[in-house]
């Protein structure tokens, strides 16, 4: 038995999959040159026309499926592909050359589109270079249809497979069937790739960006994908298999036991209502939010609109997404957070030594008013649905929120003068995620309608720990007394100013933390959709006086470990019913 091997990649879609490796290779289409007799030239151009028509039907049906299952916004790349296919100039060139050169359609077509692909790949702009993939995605489809080859074996992948690929083209990714495909691992792609979006939408565990995957994995061998940790395990030991089997079983059993809670209202045993809402990254994830019983979107991260396009989406494109999300979530609230992007993501020539302490999020937006205005206009227009709130990330000074409010007033005036409708009373809030914002939160509270505590960044900045750095990641602990005391301070500052205070970091979904957070007085907890049923179950066991007692005592400990021990003890004493889900 070969030794177990673990390969690290980027975790893009959560969950565990243990299955049989199915190496998915888009078979290289070999194109030969064949002379065509003059009498058959008309037939040859007809054959080409039919292959194009067939390809178009395929693309339209893929587009339909994406529209239904993943979201209209995501189907846009197919519009471009269909136009590339329909390009009259190309169709004319191919026909002319078939007749003039008396050569077969696949040879001529391949030559023609290779020309275009070559020209595009020479562009200095990354966006244009990347369109080469679209050209070949379409081009290969046409060639396969000409040659009568089947494509997209991805539809016919056997049940129980873990797909191993170099890369999966966007139109193929959209065809993956979660009934057959247990997991996906690929060499190419990152958190914003088409494969990432699709696997997450279909809830298929996936790890991308694994080096030399294709040369290492053999067809048919047993592999495990851990989409939480971002690893692929080859030749898993029996111990490892058992561990994951038990973990998965436990997870499934728990999920089943918690399912009824999706439907139940998020109330403590003594009747206090706490908003339990969802953090989402892609539009399509709103379906998960609804499925798991979220009472709204507590955080819609808009970065992905930008990153999946590698360009600033226009006002219209953004408006369509925000508006569609607001409509589908009605009557629940949707909190749209403005771009939390690093400057390097927007300006390719810009680099800095310390991005987390650098030019990012609101700092970029305030420096680039044109860029910021487009997003504000789009969000405000969507606010006409009356359930939209705006949230600004990475506030560290009072001046920032004053400037934001000025800009917002200007944009509203602009819209009003154009007679464009928006909600004049749209609520405006900020993420409190820097220690400085926490410490001046009394003042910030005077300027906004709500706070949402970003516990991940707040922990990172308070403790001075980069959690991505493995050497020090043990120091990252959101139960650190410094963090808990800041949360208390922020919540009190908000309530003193009569505004509501939520929390949207991972702490919100931590079962150990929920009694503490409720005791500290938080009005809303926002988390990944799948965590919602458990949070509701815990919430419905709690009583406010007990939680308040716990919170009061938790503030005085010296270490994170002491806090956690205390919380465990208290839960054992006061709420034994939730020990099973800790």
């Amino acid at each position, binding site marked *: 038995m070969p030794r177990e091997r673990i390969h690290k990649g980027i975790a893009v879609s959560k969950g565990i999959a243990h299955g049989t490796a199915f190496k998915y290779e888009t078979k290289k289409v070999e194109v030969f040159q064949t002379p065509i007799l003059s009498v058959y030239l008309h037939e040859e151009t007809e054959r080409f026309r039919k292959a194009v028509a067939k390809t178009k039907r395929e693309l339209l049906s893929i587009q339909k499926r994406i529209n239904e299952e993943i979201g209209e916004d995501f189907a846009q790349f197919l519009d471009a592909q269909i*136009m590339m296919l329909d390009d009259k100039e190309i169709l004319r060139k191919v026909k002319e050359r078939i007749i003039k050169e008396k050569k077969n359609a696949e040879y001529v077509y391949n030559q023609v589109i290779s020309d275009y692909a070559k020209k595009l790949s020479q562009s200095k*702009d990354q966006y244009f270079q990347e369109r080469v993939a679209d050209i070949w995605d379409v081009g290969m489809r046409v060639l396969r249809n000409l040659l009568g080859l089947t494509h997209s074996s991805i539809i016919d992948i056997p049940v129980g497979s873990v797909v191993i690929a170099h890369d999966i083209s966007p139109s193929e990714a959209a065809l993956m069937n979660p009934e057959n495909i247990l997991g996906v691992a690929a060499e190419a792609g990152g958190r914003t790739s088409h494969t990432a979006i699709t696997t997450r939408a279909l809830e298929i565990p996936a790890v991308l960006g694994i080096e030399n995957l294709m040369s290492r994995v053999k067809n048919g061998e047993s592999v495990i994908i851990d989409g939480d940790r971002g690893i692929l395990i080859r030749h898993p030991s029996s111990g490892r298999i058992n561990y994951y089997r038990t973990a998965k079983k436990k997870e499934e059993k728990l999920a089943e036991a918690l399912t009824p809670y999706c439907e139940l209202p998020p109330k403590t045993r003594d009747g206090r209502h706490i908003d339990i809402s969802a953090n989402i990254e892609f539009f399509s994830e709103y379906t998960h939010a609804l499925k798991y019983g979220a009472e709204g979107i507590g955080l819609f991260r808009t970065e992905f609109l930008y990153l999946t396009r590698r360009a600033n989406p226009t006002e219209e494109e953004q408006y369509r997404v925000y508006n569609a999300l607001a409509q589908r979530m009605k009557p629940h609230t949707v909190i749209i957070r403005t771009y939390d992007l690093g400057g390097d993501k927007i300006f390719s020539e810009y680099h800095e030594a310390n991005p987390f302490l650098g030019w990012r999020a609101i700092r970029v937006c305030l420096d680039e008013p044109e860029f910021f205005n487009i997003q504000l206009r789009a969000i405000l227009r969507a606010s006409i649905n009356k359930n939209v709130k705006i949230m600004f990330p990475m506030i560290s000074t009072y001046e920032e929120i004053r400037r934001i409010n000025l800009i917002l007033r200007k944009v509203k005036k602009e819209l009003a003068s154009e007679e464009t409708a928006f909600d004049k009373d749209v609520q405006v809030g900020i993420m409190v995620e820097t220690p400085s914002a926490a410490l001046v939160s009394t003042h910030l509270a005077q300027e906004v309608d709500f706070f949402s505590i970003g516990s991940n960044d707040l922990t990172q900045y308070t403790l001075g720990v980069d959690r991505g750095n493995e050497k020090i990641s043990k120091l990252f602990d959101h139960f650190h007394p410094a963090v808990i005391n800041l949360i208390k301070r922020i919540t009190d500052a908000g309530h003193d100013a009569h505004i509501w205070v939520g929390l949207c970091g991972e702490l919100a979904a931590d079962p150990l933390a929920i009694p503490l957070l409720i005791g500290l007085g938080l009005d809303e907890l926002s988390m990944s959709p799948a965590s919602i049923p458990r949070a509701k179950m815990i919430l419905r066991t709690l009583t406010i006086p007990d939680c308040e007692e716990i919170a009061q005592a938790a503030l005085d400990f010296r270490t994170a470990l002491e806090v956690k021990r205390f919380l465990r003890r208290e839960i054992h004493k006061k709420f034994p019913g939730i020990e099973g889900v800790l």
Partner: protein
Amino acid sequence: MMKEKITILNENGLHALPASRFVKTAEKFKGDVTLIKDGVEVSGKSIMGILTLACEKGSTVVLTCNGVDEKNMMKALKRILEGQD
């Protein structure tokens, strides 16, 4: 025949979306249309051609319209390149 030098002001340059809008608009007219950038000429009714020009925001192109409806065609296409549409 009408000819005009135009600076691309469209937010992201002539990316796939504005390029497809350009082609769809061009196809509504009878006349011929070409775009020239850095000496390379492509048909304005071909999205693949336009994409290969890789027109970033701020680059200049020569737009030529030729046909019975060239005046309106020029007007409509110019708006797209200048990001007003």
